[in-house]
């Protein structure tokens, strides 16, 4: 596919250019790792005073945390650059992408491809590893299978949120904060158990913006907890489906947004 090819080419160019400054790359990656690690330290501090959060003990919260961080980190690595789209729309530099023989989405997504975002993924993986070791999970083939499926689907759902948010920036060019609320905000929300939030919020995050399918629902199944909102167990295997629908909708939103692009007067 032409889009993937363009994405690869542009991404590779940025990687090559970052690797020209290895020391700087190492430092920013470590910084990225450290900043995200602080997040988790906050949770650890909280657990020094309580035993469980909304009925979830530390290792299980770590499980949520790790799953959310890895899924979000993958999406952020892949297409995190899209949050800057509004700037390009406002100053008209999107023009230059439109005259190249590659889909604009791929070009925007690959722009400034930043390997330092691996920092978050590494940190999330470590926490997830700790959780898997610390929780006594009763592994069944289905539960084992669900783990990679959940990570990939979760990343895809976050990608859809990034794309939809970018599409929205065609209309509201200053909306990158709104987008951040949904992406970074969503990822943080998912690090905490659903039981600490109100029922309305959990409903919204399940049926409206289906982030619950990234962590809460698959995690509940793997950990042998009841699925939130009393949903049946099979829902735990819906993430790929939900991700597919989200991506399709985000794609439509993107096309509509791009069609409304009108450049600038100068």
């Amino acid at each position, binding site marked *: 596919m032409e889009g993937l090819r363009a994405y690869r080419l542009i991404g590779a160019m940025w990687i090559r250019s970052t690797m020209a400054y290895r020391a700087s790359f190492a430092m920013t990656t470590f910084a990225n790792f450290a900043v995200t690690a602080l997040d988790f330290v906050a949770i650890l501090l909280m657990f020094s005073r309580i035993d469980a959060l909304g009925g979830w003990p530390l290792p299980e919260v770590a499980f949520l945390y790790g799953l959310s961080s890895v899924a979000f980190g993958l999406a952020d690595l892949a297409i995190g650059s899209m949050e800057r789209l509004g700037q390009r729309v406002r100053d008209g*530099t999107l023009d230059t992408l439109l005259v190249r023989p590659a889909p604009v989405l791929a070009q925007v997504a690959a722009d400034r491809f930043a390997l330092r975002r691996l920092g978050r993924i590494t940190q999330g993986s470590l926490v997830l590893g700790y959780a898997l070791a610390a929780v006594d999970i009763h592994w069944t083939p289905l539960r084992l299978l669900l783990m990679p499926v959940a990570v990939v689907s979760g990343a895809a759902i976050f990608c859809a949120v990034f794309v939809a948010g970018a599409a929205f920036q065609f209309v509201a060019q200053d909306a990158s904060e709104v987008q951040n609320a949904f992406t970074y905000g969503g990822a943080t929300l998912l690090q905490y158990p659903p039981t600490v939030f109100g029922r309305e919020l959990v409903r919204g995050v399940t049926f409206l913006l289906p982030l619950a399918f990234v962590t809460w629902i698959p995690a509940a199944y793997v950990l042998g907890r009841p699925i939130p909102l009393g949903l049946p167990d099979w829902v735990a295997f819906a993430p790929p489906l939900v991700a597919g629908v989200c991506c399709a909708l985000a794609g439509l939103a993107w096309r509509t947004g791009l069609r409304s692009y009108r450049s600038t007067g100068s």
Partner: protein
Amino acid sequence: MDDHVTDHFIEHRADHFIELDRVEKVFDVRKKTGFMKRERREVRAVDSISFTVARGEMVGYIGPNGAGKSTTIKMLTGILTPSGGRLRVAGIDPSRERTRLAHRIGVVFGQRTTLWWDLPLIDSYRLMHRMYRIPDARYRENLDRCVELLELGDLLDVPVRQLSLGQRMRGDIAAALLHDPEVLYLDEPTIGLDVISKAKVRGFLRELNAERGTTVLLTTHDLQDIEQLCSRVMVIDHGRLMYDGPLTGLHEVGESERTLVVDLERELPPIEMPPARVVRVEGPRQWLAFPAAESAAALVARVAAEYPLVDLSVREPDIEAVIARMYAGEASDAAGQAVP
């Protein structure tokens, strides 16, 4: 059905490489007029423009600020979708098949770069090489040629943001040509360039057009660009085509005047010789303006017969003045007839 027939027709007429038929672009502009109040206004940036450009032509597209030049170019590249009319470039509808068209066109925006701002120039070129699937040999050849003619040799490893305006512009022109486009659009390619850079760019474009037969459409505010490059010029104002023809033809529609400068033996009262009129007197030297269409020889003969002449010279009309008058709307009636 009808549409299909026309499509077919256009594809097989080589002389209609670019074709616009009553193309329009209307922008909806929303203006805040107060708290929570908004006013909607329509701006007709391009208002029913029709023209065709043949393969290998080099056309200047001029007009005052806000005339609709950039908007036209953006429609020709597929960046903007026309609000009305039909538009084809190489038989392709640009906004529908933007990526397919991209392989066949080159675009340079004087106001903004298409290069990757933070990366060395050569990185952008390497990426173009892959992205446009340019055969290796062809890429080498084109790059070497551009590097030589546009003097980019020392700049290839410099990040684009560190290039001066003129250097960056040359870099952009090279980038637009690596994939051998059939048509090159240039939106103010000489803006902000010094005399030497301008000459370099013009020389390069002339050669490109002569040797490769690349069709060139360029907008500019520097009439020397047009004088030196384009056999054909289109003037637009308020989104409408006011003139389409050779640069010299502007004189006729622009009611322009030539000037006869005569040096007499001594100071004399202003010469009376209609339709010429004296516009300036400085001692024994007098300036006579006469319609550009009138014969200078006849006038010179009549003046020589009646006045003691020492020397004389004829000055061609000032094209800038003609166009300025045209922009100001004075000549718009006459010019309107110039477009068939």
